């Protein structure tokens, strides 16, 4: 299943190309176009990482797991049961 993510990446890129690129070029919104391309690249790279099981890119969950000690301390303090 992970490889199918590439089809969705391509679908979104295709939709953007068909419905947005021309309008953006016409209105000379180059900054918006660059931001969109960067976001597509980011999503595309993560898509490839998932599809081919490379695991090269960092998982953003690491930013949430940093909070584990705080969360555990809070749960102990407030006697939260699972």
């Amino acid at each position, binding site marked *: *299943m*992970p490889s*199918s*993510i590439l089809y*969705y*990446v391509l*679908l*979104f*890129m295709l*939709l*953007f190309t068909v*419905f*947005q690129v021309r309008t*953006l070029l016409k*209105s000379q*919104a180059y*900054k*918006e*176009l660059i*931001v*969109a391309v960067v*976001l*597509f690249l*980011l*999503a595309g790279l*993560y*898509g490839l990482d*998932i599809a081919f099981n490379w695991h090269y890119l960092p*998982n*953003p*969950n690491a*930013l*949430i*797991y940093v*909070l*584990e000690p*705080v*969360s555990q301390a*809070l*749960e102990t*303090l*407030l*006697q*939260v*049961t699972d």
Partner: protein
Amino acid sequence: MSGKPLSSRQLAFMVFFLLPGSSLVYFAGMAARQDAWLAAGIAVFSGLGMLYVIMQVHSLFPGKNITQICPLVLGKVPGTILNILFFWSLFILTLSLIYDLTSVLKIIYPLFPTLLLIALIILTSSYCLFKGLQSIGILADVSIGVCLFFILLSFILFIPLMDLAKLAPVLENWKPLMAGVIYSADFPFNEVVILALFLPTVHDLASRGRIIYYWYLISALFLVLFDLQLVAVLGPGLAQLYTFPLFELFRLAGFGDFQRLEMLFFLLWFITGLFAILIYFQGLIFVTRDILGLKQDRALILPVGLCLLVFSYVMFPTEIIYLELGFKYTPVYTFPVNVLYPLIVLVAALIYRKRRSGYQSEQEVTPG
């Protein structure tokens, strides 16, 4: 309408959808066990306070949203850092909302691949966002009656199943109650902080802004009553054990020969869940636009949508990871950010206003 597409009434309806839409899987105040309804009832005031704070911020700078006000009053660098922290909070919450709705859809379409369901949700939301805020407002106008009907129907259906003895003992221990208050204040009540991004798009806020408070309170009341019924029907143990306690509740509901009514309520789940995603998706686009200093936001709909699709798979690949991250670790980040961010901006905005008025009066006293 002077380029402001929403009315106060439409935004109020959106607030109404936001709260139950965020509680599809999780029921508010779960950590407080049998006192969950009490915890949710107390946490309502946290959301009400947030609503008041963002309204005050907006009244100081009408026409600007909170992510535009933040760098203005705090300075560019600290303001942008705070905006990025707020963006990350919204991003995690949006992914959680997408995961919740996908889980609900998985019950109905168990053989559909998860990615396809996520893609369908995001493409549907993208289409609505492309149509503009006015269309979302009209959708809210159209959907409110249906949702109210189903919510009231569900209350009536659950009454015969309730066993109030399951609510006892009340206030057994204050610590889990406190945990329930904190967790339910974070999710869903403090989620109203997202409205700080939508207030500049409302054209009659000054004259009819109060209606937003009323609909927030109605929605919060429904959530508290849902909690009460959930515990009174299932008991605190089962309510915590089930992945979809609300779904189990709907499964038990029925009258006479009319049983298995849960599919009837699917419409309610889908509408509220989709609205919550729509609001957060649009909010993310607003924040991205303001952080990067872009003029148009329509160009961001599909790229941000694709990022949501990919990262929902990267960050929440299994239910265990989602439950661990979403309910244990994420509130530790989102709660302080969603509370402190508008408060810091409000204090800074008040100081900024005071200094400016002081400077202006000084100029008037000593002309030339």
